[in-house]
Each structure stands twice: as C-alpha cells, then as structure tokens.
C-alpha cells in the first residue's frame, strides 16, 4: 500500500481528460470567449434559417376534417344581433345596460344558460411578494361606487351528452358605452357560432361565451371573470354592496317570457375545466390588402399557449377560409438594409452548400429571412417584456391555453362584405372549437416553449437554447481564469526567491489571504445586489405617495437609489476604495465574482423567461467580459486598449436600464417624444403584470452594471 502511494506520488498526477479540457479552456479563456460570443450572436441570427415548419402534433385535433356547418341562416342571426346592437347604441348611449340586455336576450332565445357577472376593475398594484405566485382572489375593497361596475354577460351551452367536465371559452370584448362597429361585428360572429353550437349533436365539451365588458380594459374584465371562476370568494362584502345599486339590479329584471325561462339566474355559472379559450376581436379599420387574421399568443412572463392551438387556427384560416394569418413583427426591422444583406449572405451560403451537397437545403430567400427575423425579434421582445399581448394572458395565468384572434377585414361597412366576414370568421371559430372539442386529453403533445418566425414556422426550445448557451458559456471560464490569474500573480509577488519550504509556507499564507480577498470582493458584489433588491422594492413605497406624476416619481426613485447606495456603502464597508495597495488585481477578483453572479442570474432567468435572459445576455455578457479599469487601458495606450475603452464606454451607457429603454423607445418611436416619466410608466406596467423582467432588471442587470462601472473607474 505504501509503495503504491509512493508510486502515485512520484510521477505527475494523472489528470482526467475532462479536467484537462477544463484547464485548457480556462487558460485560453480569451479566445474561447471571443469564439463563443460571436458564435452565440451568429446562432441567434441563424434562427430564422433553422426554423421548422409547424405541424399538427395532436392527432385527435383533426382540424378541417369536418365540413363547416355554419350556414347562411346563422350568419343572418348574427347580422340581426349586429343591427340591434348598433341601433341600441344610437338610442341610449349613456348606459350600456341596454345592449347587455339585448345580448342576454339573444342568448336566452337560443336556449343557453345566461348569467351576468358584475365586477370591479381591480387596480393592478405592486405586490413585492406576488411574483410567480398563483393569482389570488384579490383584496376586498369596500367603498366601490355604483358607477365603477363592469358587467360581463356569460352564456353557457351544455353539451347534450357530455359529462360537463370540460369547457371551451369564447371571449368577445365589448364596450357597451362606446362600441365600435368592429366590436359589434365580433359579437355577431360569436353569436352565429353560438347559435350553431346550440343545435349540433357533436358537442362533447360545454361552450362558454363571455362578452367581456371592456370599459375598464379587456384584460381586467376577463381576469375578473376568471378570478371569480377559479378562486371565488365566499365571504365578501362587495356583492352586498352591489345589491344596492339600482342600475345593476335593473339588469336582472329581464323578462323571462322565453321558453327557457329557468335558464337565467344571477348566480355565477360554471362549466368545468377550460380546455382552451379563444378571444375574438374585429378591428374597426382594415387597411390591409386582404382579409387578415392576427394571432396574439404571448402571455405573462413569456408563457405561450400550446403550439397546436396556433397551428389549428393557422391551418383552418389559411387552408379552409382563405384568410391571411399574421403574427406580430417589428416593422422597423423590415426595411433595414443590413438585415437584408445578412439574409443575402445566408442565401448565397446556402447555395454554395447546395452545390457541394445537393441534399442539404437550409437556405431561405433573403426577403423571407428579413420577415422571419422581424417576427422573431417581436416574438422575443414580447416574451421578454413579460406583459400579455391581449386578454388571453389572463387565461394563461390559470394554465388555460388561449390566443387572441384579431380579424382585420379589407373593406368596411359593406353589406355583402359583412356577411362574408361573418361567414368566414364564424366558420374559422367553429372549426377551431370543433377541433378542440375532439380533444380527449388537454393540450400536451406540441411545444409550449417556442419562438415563432412566421405563423407556420417556429423555433423550438432545443434550437434556440443553443444561441443562449453559447453566449453564456465563456462566463464561468473567464471567471475562473481571472480568479486563477489574480491568485497566481499575488503568489508570484511573494514567494519569488524563497526556498521550497518557504514557498509552501508562503503558499499557505497566500491561501488564507486569497480566501480573504475573495470574500472581500464577494462582499462587495453581495452589497451591490442587496442594493439592487432595495432599489426594486422602492417603487412599492413610492407609489404610495399620492398625487405623484411619473416624472417626479422617477426622480424620487433615482435619488433614493443613490442615497441608499451611499448609505450601504458607508455602513457596511468602503468596498470601492482599494483596501490595500498590494492588491493590484483587486478589480480582477471583483470582475470574476461579478461574472459568476451574472452567470447564475442569467441561468436562473433563462428558466423563468428565456427571452429576457437572451436579450439580457446580449447586453451584459460583452459588458462583463470587456470590463477593465480605464486607467490601465489609458496607461497602455495601444490600439487594442483604445478599442476596449470605446467598447466599454458604449456598453456602459447602453447597459444602464433607463438608457437602454430610451434608446429602444427612440429607435421604435422616434426620439422626439421621449420623456423621463416614460420609464417610470414602463416600470409600473412591468410590475403591474407581475413580470419577472422587472426583477431581472432590478436584481441582476442593475447591480451588474454598477459593478462593471465600478471596475471601469477602479483606481489602480
């Protein structure tokens, strides 16, 4: 035994290949980071090329296999409702109750169960601890006035032989006070489908038609209804209050001379688990060249509905109803010449590849590439923002797959055209409902994590993760190499001319110092992150201040943030100053710890909201990697250091969240309208929607920026 130990001690200890590889990568961290970052960015731009065609993954859906049953009779019914609604608008526009009554009466005549749902618009408030928590039933607010009511009209069709365990929801936002013609038309489409569904025998799931009162916003109405549906309050004072409002009670005095008289009640109607939800809107003015249908799918925190739902809509709209399907895209990117030239490069590359190997065909035309990139960019942007793009977002909070369909017709106010759009829209909705109705299981076959590059093309998580992984891969290596660097340099300084025994002594001593040094910079990083947490909590207190304009709130926020940073700095330590002159490489350790904390932050965020992490990584990774004290660079005075200085200064400005916001806003809307208060508004909307992006900015990006700036101005 002793011999073997001796033997193993004597020759150079054999290192396992993976460790050797690690050491190799760490020692060549600069090269690795350059390669990885460029390839990461390149991979991001390659995504539109790599996108695959969508396909219906769930066999049970069978879209379009049945011929549509929606006939002209139903369209006429729908038209009747549209006419009545537009007329009633002219008559009594001061209250929306008339039109609600009309809708309820129409539903009752079909034999559906009808109920009204009264709700108060719930102010979205910042609750620091409510991120990621499931939606609760909300606060009980006592002093509601009667005027601030919204009324949702809900019609339910029970499936004739179904067991009532599942339901499909159809939502049409409708503002009774000032409804445009588009809203009335969307009601007409929904009504024609609804009247068909009361007669069909194939229904297996119940159908809920929610006419959401959008006078306080579409989302508020839908989410109020969903809250009541999923987490009802059994003890509430607000409902008692509501009984006292005469206006509302008028509503319930609907004449029950209908055949299905018993079907109306003012109690809340439920119909089982929601399998899917469709929000239907019709845009008032259509300026397109053909009938278009836009799909909005992004819900809060970048959650997406199952891809199958989008596929079904896309398939039916394109192949059955001849509508053009549109997904949101960043218009400013469409005309950019650099993107076009990039697309041409890819196209020519693909041609070259094809000549070499006829089998490989990954290239797409340059125009298609530009469109795909614009769509992908908007897909990334809306997912990263974490704010739902429509009322469907409320459903996603309850794990219901939902999308918003916005129909924008090409002509307007033509009788024939109106019937045509009613028929085609109705048939589309009918087809989608019929497909979902076929489902035995809930949506699970297809993807939940994807980016769309066009309505019929997507990039799945397995592909888009590569770009992100390449981008953040150099972070741990650079951190490790910096750490090793800092330690070895201090070692070198101390134990240069000593005997071997002294070397070990000094090494031991060095180890203790090193660990202490490491802790020092870790403390700094921790303090800055703590400050980040405080900064992101501050708005909660600031928004309590009454009568505060966005600009003043923003100023208060900035001032308080600076103040808190100074206080923290003075109370806990003076970390920004060099403690000991001997530690020249202090900044390297700080940078190393910063990089590792950024790596952890980005890794966590990629799990919560990938798009935010991707965009954050695009900005933060170069900034972290390039950060170096300006003094050193100025001292060096080479071309390389000059470049670095410029890069650092540019990145240092861009990475500051408000600056980035204004830059982005200026790029999209023009710089003229920029206002300091806008940022506050934007932040307000982020926390109102419980967006994790807000936390990311406050607790990862801002501290990282502060640390990088502190490194830049490091005095050594």
């Amino acid at each position: 035994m002793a011999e073997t130990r001796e033997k193993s001690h004597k020759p150079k200890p054999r290192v396992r290949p993976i460790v050797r590889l690690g050491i190799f990568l760490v020692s060549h961290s600069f090269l690795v980071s350059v390669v990885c970052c460029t390839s990461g960015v390149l991979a991001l731009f390659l995504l539109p090329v790599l996108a695959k065609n969508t396909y219906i993954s769930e066999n049970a859906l069978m879209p379009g296999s049945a011929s549509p049953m929606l006939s002209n009779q139903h369209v006429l019914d729908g038209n009747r409702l549209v006419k009545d609604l537009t007329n009633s608008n002219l008559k009594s526009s001061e209250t929306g109750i008339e039109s609600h009554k009309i809708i309820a009466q129409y539903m009752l005549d079909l034999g559906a169960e009808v109920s009204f749902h009264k709700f108060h618009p719930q102010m979205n408030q910042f609750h620091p601890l409510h991120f990621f928590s499931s939606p609760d039933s909300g606060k009980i607010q006592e002093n509601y006035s009667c005027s601030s009511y919204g009324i949702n009209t809900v019609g339910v069709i029970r499936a004739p032989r179904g067991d009532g365990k599942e339901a499909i929801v159809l939502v049409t936002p409708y503002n009774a006070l000032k409804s445009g013609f588009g809203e009335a038309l969307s009601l007409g489409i929904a009504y024609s489908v609804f009247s068909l569904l009361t007669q069909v025998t194939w229904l297996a799931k119940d159908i809920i038609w929610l006419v959401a009162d959008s006078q306080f916003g579409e989302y508020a109405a839908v989410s109020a209804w969903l809250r009541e549906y999923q987490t009802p309050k059994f003890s509430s004072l607000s409902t008692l209050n509501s009984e006292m409002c005469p206006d509302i009670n008028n509503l319930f005095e609907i004449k029950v001379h209908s055949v299905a008289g018993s079907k109306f009640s003012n109690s809340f109607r439920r119909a089982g688990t929601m399998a899917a939800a469709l929000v239907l809107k019709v845009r008032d003015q259509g300026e397109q060249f053909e009938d278009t249908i836009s799909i909005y799918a992004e819900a809060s925190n970048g959650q997406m509905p199952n891809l199958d739902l989008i596929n079904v809509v896309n398939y039916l709209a394109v192949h059955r109803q001849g509508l053009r399907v549109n997904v949101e895209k960043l218009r400013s990117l469409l005309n950019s010449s650099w993107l076009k030239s990039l697309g041409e490069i890819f196209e020519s590359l693909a041609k070259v590849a094809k000549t070499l190997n006829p089998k490989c065909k990954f290239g797409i035309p340059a125009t298609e590439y530009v469109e795909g990139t614009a769509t992908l960019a908007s897909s990334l942007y809306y997912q990263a923002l974490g704010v739902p793009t429509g009322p469907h977002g409320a459903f996603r909070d309850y794990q219901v797959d939902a999308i918003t369909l916005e129909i924008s017709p090409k002509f307007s106010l033509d009788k024939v055209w109106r019937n045509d759009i009613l028929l085609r829209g109705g048939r589309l909705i009918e087809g989608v409902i019929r497909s979902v109705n076929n489902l035995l299981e809930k949506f699970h076959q297809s993807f939940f994590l994807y980016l769309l590059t066009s309505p019929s093309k997507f990039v799945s998580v397995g592909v888009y993760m590569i770009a992100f992984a390449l981008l953040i891969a150099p972070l741990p290596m650079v951190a490790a190499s910096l750490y090793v660097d800092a330690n070895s340099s201090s070692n070198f300084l101390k134990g240069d001319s000593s005997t071997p025994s002294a070397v070990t002594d000094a090494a031991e001593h060095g180890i203790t110092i090193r660990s202490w040094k490491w802790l020092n910079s870790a403390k700094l990083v921790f303090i800055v992150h703590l400050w980040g947490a405080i900064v992101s909590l501050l708005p909660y207190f600031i928004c309590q201040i009454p009568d505060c304009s966005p600009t003043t709130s923003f100023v208060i926020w900035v001032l308080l943030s600076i103040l808190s940073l100074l206080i923290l700095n003075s109370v806990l330590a003076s970390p920004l100053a060099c403690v000991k002159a001997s530690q020249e490489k202090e900044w390297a350790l700080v940078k190393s710890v910063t990089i590792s904390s950024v790596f952890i932050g980005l890794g966590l965020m990629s799990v919560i909201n990938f798009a935010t992490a991707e965009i954050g990584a695009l900005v933060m990774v170069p900034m972290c990697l390039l950060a170096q004290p300006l003094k050193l660079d100025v001292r060096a005075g080479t071309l390389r250091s000059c470049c670095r200085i410029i890069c650092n200064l540019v990145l240092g400005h861009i990475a500051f969240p408000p600056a980035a916001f204004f830059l982005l806003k200026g790029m999209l809307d023009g710089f003229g309208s920029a206002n300091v208060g806008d940022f506050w508004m934007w932040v307000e909307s982020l926390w109102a929607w419980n967006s994790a992006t807000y936390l990311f900015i406050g607790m990862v990006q801002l501290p990282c920026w502060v640390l990088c700036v502190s490194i830049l101005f490091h005095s050594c």
Partner: protein
Amino acid sequence: MSLLRRPLLVLILVVTSQFLQLWIAFGSVNEEGQRQEEFYEELLLKPLPDRKVLTHFHFQSSAPLTSNGRHHHLFPKAISQLVQKFRVKEMELSFTQGRWNYESWGGFDSIPSSNAKPPGVELWAVFDVPQYLIDSLWKNLTHTLSGLFCASINFLESSTAYSAPEWSFPPASGNLRYGTLPREAVCTENLTPWLKLLPCRDKAGISMLLDRPSIYRGFYHSQRLHLTSTESGSEGMDPGIVLEQTLTVVLQPNSQRASLARASEKHIQPSWSLSSIFGKQVSGKCVLAETSNVYLLLDRGLVAELKQLHKENGKSAEKVLTSENFWTNPCFELSAKPDRIFIEESSLLSKNSSVLYKFEVEKYSEFEPFDLGLTWKIPVVWLCQQAPLHASRFLMGSGNERGAIAISLKSTQSSEGFMGANSDHERCELRVDVFQVVPWYVKVYFHSLQVFVDQQPKAVSDIIEKIHVSPSKDKVSPGVMELVLKLPCSVSSAALTIEFDKGFLRIDEYPPDANQGFDIPSAIVSFPNYHASMVFLGNDSLNKSPLLSKFKCLLCILDHCLMHYEGVLLRRRDFLKTKPPRKLVGYFCCCQSCQRSLEVRVKVRIEMYADQVEGAGKRSVKERLNGNSFHNSIPRRQTTGKRQRQDEKWEHDLYHDDVPHVSYRTTDARDLRLKLQRKSLQQVSQSGRGALSGVRDLREKLSGTMNPWPVNADPPKLKSDLTKPTRRSVTVETSEPEPKKAATTEAKKKAQQKADASVEGFLQSLGLEKYAITFQVEEVDMTALVHMTDDDLKALGIPMGPRKKIILALE
C-alpha cells in the same frame, strides 16, 4: 277417412283443452295462499319545460326467495343466484350518460331523485354478512356484475376504488359498499344484458319501444337496476327478491327548424308521439306482465299554468280539474283517450297538484298499436319544481399543486314555498347531508374545512351537526367524508371548502392517458327532511302499480332524500411521459410556468332515494292467461326459449370452480331438464296429485311442456354456514393446545389421505367451520388450501389463532 279423422282431432283438442283448463284452475287455486312471481311494466312520460320529454321505463319483477329452490318462472335466474351467492340485501347499479339538468328538468320529484345518477357507472350494495366478509363478497360481486353487464365494474374491486359510508348514505348501514366509475362509457352493450333480464326482452310489451338509436340520441339516459332481497323474519314483508329495472331517457322531439323562425310559433312546445320520439309503437302488453300501463304526468307547475290559462280564457278553474274534460282542453290534445285520470292530493307543501293520465296497454294489439301523442296548441311556459338548494361543486385554485374543493349551495326560489309551510321561522332548520369520496392521491386537509353561510364565515361547529371522516391511505383506500349540516331555513347561499394537496404518483401509477386528468367521484348532497312525494286520489287499482307506489313515499319509513351528484375532474400533467426527447417540452414546462395544473370539471346530479313498497296487487295465472289474446303467445315462446339458455350460461359463470356447488354442477342443468322433459307425462299425473308442493312455471305451461319443479334436494349451503358460527365461535377461542395437537394429527392424516376432501370438513375437524364461508367466497378448495401460506390466510381475514391452527393442521 279424412272426414272421420277430423272430428276426432277436434274432439281430442277439445278434451285436452278442457283438461288443461281444469289443471290451470287447479294451479291458480293452489297459488292463492302463496306468493308467486310477478312482473310489472310501466312507462311514464312527462313533458319538460325546455322542449324535451322525459320517458321513464319501469320494470319490476319479484320472486319469493326460496320456495322454488333455484328455479324461477319469470324472475331472472342470474339475479337470484347473485343474491344468494353474495348475500346481497340491497343493491343498485346504474349506467348513465349525460347530466341531469336540475334546473330545467326539476329536482324535487321522485324521478330525478332516484334516477338522476352521476355519469358512468355507480354501484352500491348492502350485504347480509358479518363485517369481515363484506370486502371479499364485494370483490366477487363486482366481477360477476362486470361479466353480466359487459362493463368494467371489476375495476371497483380495488380497495382504492370503493368506500364504506357509515351513515350518510340513505340505506344506512355499516354493511354498505359504494363505488363509482366516472369514466365508464355507457353504450348499447350494457343495455342488451339489462334487457335480457326482462321476461319479454324487448320483443313485446312496453319494452318494444326501446329503440337503441333513439335512446342513445337522448340528452340523458340512465339505466338502473335496483335489487332488494328480504329475508323471512323482517318486519311485515314477505321474504323475496324484488328487482326493479328502470331506464330514464330525456329526449328532444324533432321539431321543425323552419317553424323556429316565426316568432309566434317559437314558444309553442314541440308536439310529440311515441312513434315520433322512439320510432316505434306499442303493440300490446307483455303477456307475462301483471299490469302494463303507460302514464302521462303533468307536473304541478304545468297544471298551475294550464289553470291560469283557463282562467284567462274565462273558464272556471274548477271545471278544468274534473277528470272528464281535462284531456280535451284547449292547451293540448292527446291522441289516445286515457283510461283514467288521477289528480294528486294537494299536499301541505304546495297548493298545486299534478295530474296523471293512465293508459292501459292491454287494450291495444298489433292491429291497433298504442301510440300516445301530445299536440300543443298554445305556448305554455312553466317551471319544474326545484330542490330546496341548488348544489354545485368545483375545484378552486389553479396551476400549483394545491387547491380546494368547494361545494356551494344556492337557494332556489321555489324553496320559499316549502319554507313558508314550515312556518316556525326561529327553529326552522334545513338539514343537508353531504357525502364525498376523494381518491387517495388527493390529500384532503380535513382541518381546513370552512363553512360560509350567506357569505359570512361561520364556525364549523355551528353549522355542522355531525361529521365522519375516514382519511385516505396511500394506495390503499380513498378518503370519505360524511357531513350533516344544519342550515337556517332562510339561507340564501352556503358554501363548504376543503383544501387539498395532490399526492405524489409514481410513474407506473399514471394511467396511459394521464393528460386527460383524474376524476374525483361525485359528491352526494341530500335533503333528508324533504319529502318528494305525490299521493294520487283514486281507487285501489292504483296500488297495483309499483311505479305509482313510488310516488306515495310520504308514507314510507324512510324520508326521501334529494341527492346532488357532482363530478369533478382533477388534472395534472405528466412530465415523465414525453414525446421524443429532442423537444425538451417536459422539463422546461415545469420550470417556466409551473404547468402542473389542477383543473375542475363539475357536474351535478340529484338523487332521491325512495323506499320500496311491494306491489300489492296479485293476479292469478289463470286471469292472466284468459286476458291474453292468442297471437301474443307466439313471440313469447321464442323469447322464453332464449332466456332459458341464457340462464344456463349465467349459471356457469356464477358457479365456476365453486367447490360447494360441485355436486350440483355435475348434473348439468340441461341434462336435468332433458330428463324432466322425458318424464313429463308421469310427472303431470304426479303433480296433479301433489299440486300443493309446487307452483307451475307459467312459461312451461304456455309452451306446452309440463315440467313440474324438481324438488330441490340440497338446501342452500351458504345459509347454513352463516348460522353456524355464532354457536361455535366460543369453542374456537377456548380450545387448548393439547386437543388441538391431537386434532391436527388427525387432520393431517386426513388431508394426506384424501386431497379432495372438502375444506368444510377439514375446518369442521378443527372446529373452525365458521370460516368456511370465507374459503368458499375465495373459492379455495382443499388442493388450494394445502398451498396456502400464513400470509394468504391473513389476506383472507382469518385471525391469528385459527390461522396457526390451520397451518399446523396442514403440515
């Protein structure tokens, strides 16, 4: 010659027919003192407010328990064997598709209350055996029933699938087992065996209407089988088995779509007739039935509305009510003249009374089939009577692994009438029983039970009078919660919530379609203080109808209960069942959006339990025979032949590998019958002499072969086994080691000598014969017993002492 021969033939015919009649007369006289098998068929039709028609078929056959041994004339043999073998005291099996709509179809009369069932299969049974045997009997019963009805009832065998309610279930007793299969698809496969239990199948009588396509096109159909066996010695009832088969279908008559367009005709109820809703007509009654009637029921709301319409037309309301003119009134028209009209005795609870028209099918024949039609002339709108509270159940919360089950009760407007009748407002209390079973993977926190009355949270002890909870055991048994709530009568809404966690399921415990979710069985909400009854004025002839006797349950021992069935579906995502791994869907789903979702599916059912009242009317065989026209007998003969074969098949199923019945099985039933047929002539004369001993099989009489009942030599063994243990149980406890040893050596020898010796004898030698039934139930014979280990015996539920004894003896 031919001329000569013909009169001779006629003469012979005349003589034999005389003889036959004489003999029948004998038979009928002899039966006077004794109960005989009876069969009733009835159909109730009721127009519903939402343009639909409720059709309720009711078939009842009853048989004395043991007077004829194993043989029955009319009563399905499979059922009687089932009762005898599994000691079933009461049993109900229902197959249901669709939901009963309590709001528009009513929730307060006896039809919804006893026939509104949860979707899928529901089975409960009460056994007449000691506690420790019930589970094994239940398991065997489920297997037998699944074979009988072509359904997966055998899945109720697993102890996680059934529960034992203590007292909240109406036929309350500790011997009850209750299980449901919410997912079971109900189809015509289940209806066919159900129909085969009827003496006439669907070949004659009212059951001819049962056209499969129209039944399964209906909005709701529930096929139910209710079985009650009464032991001799129980109070006031004759010993026997009563089998009730009901089929409740809600159908929508075909209305012309064109007429919908015109506003004036929009509100007129669709007119219907039997042939339009079923596509068939009734051509005469089933000859084996005592009575065969069709009823048309107009419920209280409708009658009140009709009266109102009459008043508006200027006619006096009293005039309407007289039975002569009610069927020719201006509101609607009946295509057939009712034989009788009954008007409900106006009860204390409500001023209005319902009207019942009775049609006797007997009078109709193939040439003049019975086809009842109802044509509405003016639009009528009415409401069905509602249960005092409208119950709904749903799951709260979403997304995460936690949630809550909520049962919400809302007062219906109609209940105010009932409340008013009670008048004592201070002490007036509304009793509500709630029975809820939750599968084991739903971990219910019973301490988190919250009660809200009129939107105010209340202390649980104020509202809940009685509570019984048996928590679930992982992978062993479901959780059961039984509650008795006392709500103030003025309550407008009440709610119960209980929180739960989702249990952890291993990957192999997920069903293959895990994304479909998991069903939580229906809850049962009942109102025991409410009587859903109708008492009809009329003479005694009504008593003959078992269907109508159901309406009189106010007089019965047990109060009626309105039950709400609600089904809830719970869902969770299965992350482990993935598509091709390249998609990475599973992993990221759980990370990004916590998609383990929990969702609710709600359905509501009301159930009311009516007690049985024996059909009092008896008609002798002769009467029945004389009342029949000739042409009816031809199809009947065919059907009876079929049924006999079916019986034998069932018998094989039932007694498969059953040791105590080996002796019985060796002489095949068919052989026995053949032998008997050969001997028939001698037997006739014998039976002529000893007619007192046996009742004649009506079918046999009709088919011409005159077989008397074989005198059943072997008494039912199960019964004797059951009576024994009480006597000998003491000896088991006190037996000492020395005699045991002696006994064991003896037994050992015995066991070695003849391996085929009966288990019973073996146990008897050990003084353990009270466990014989346990072995019998598990179908353990001596060869199997030799191979049984200690654990096996433990699984049988045999206590430690006897177990050791048996093992020692086997060694």
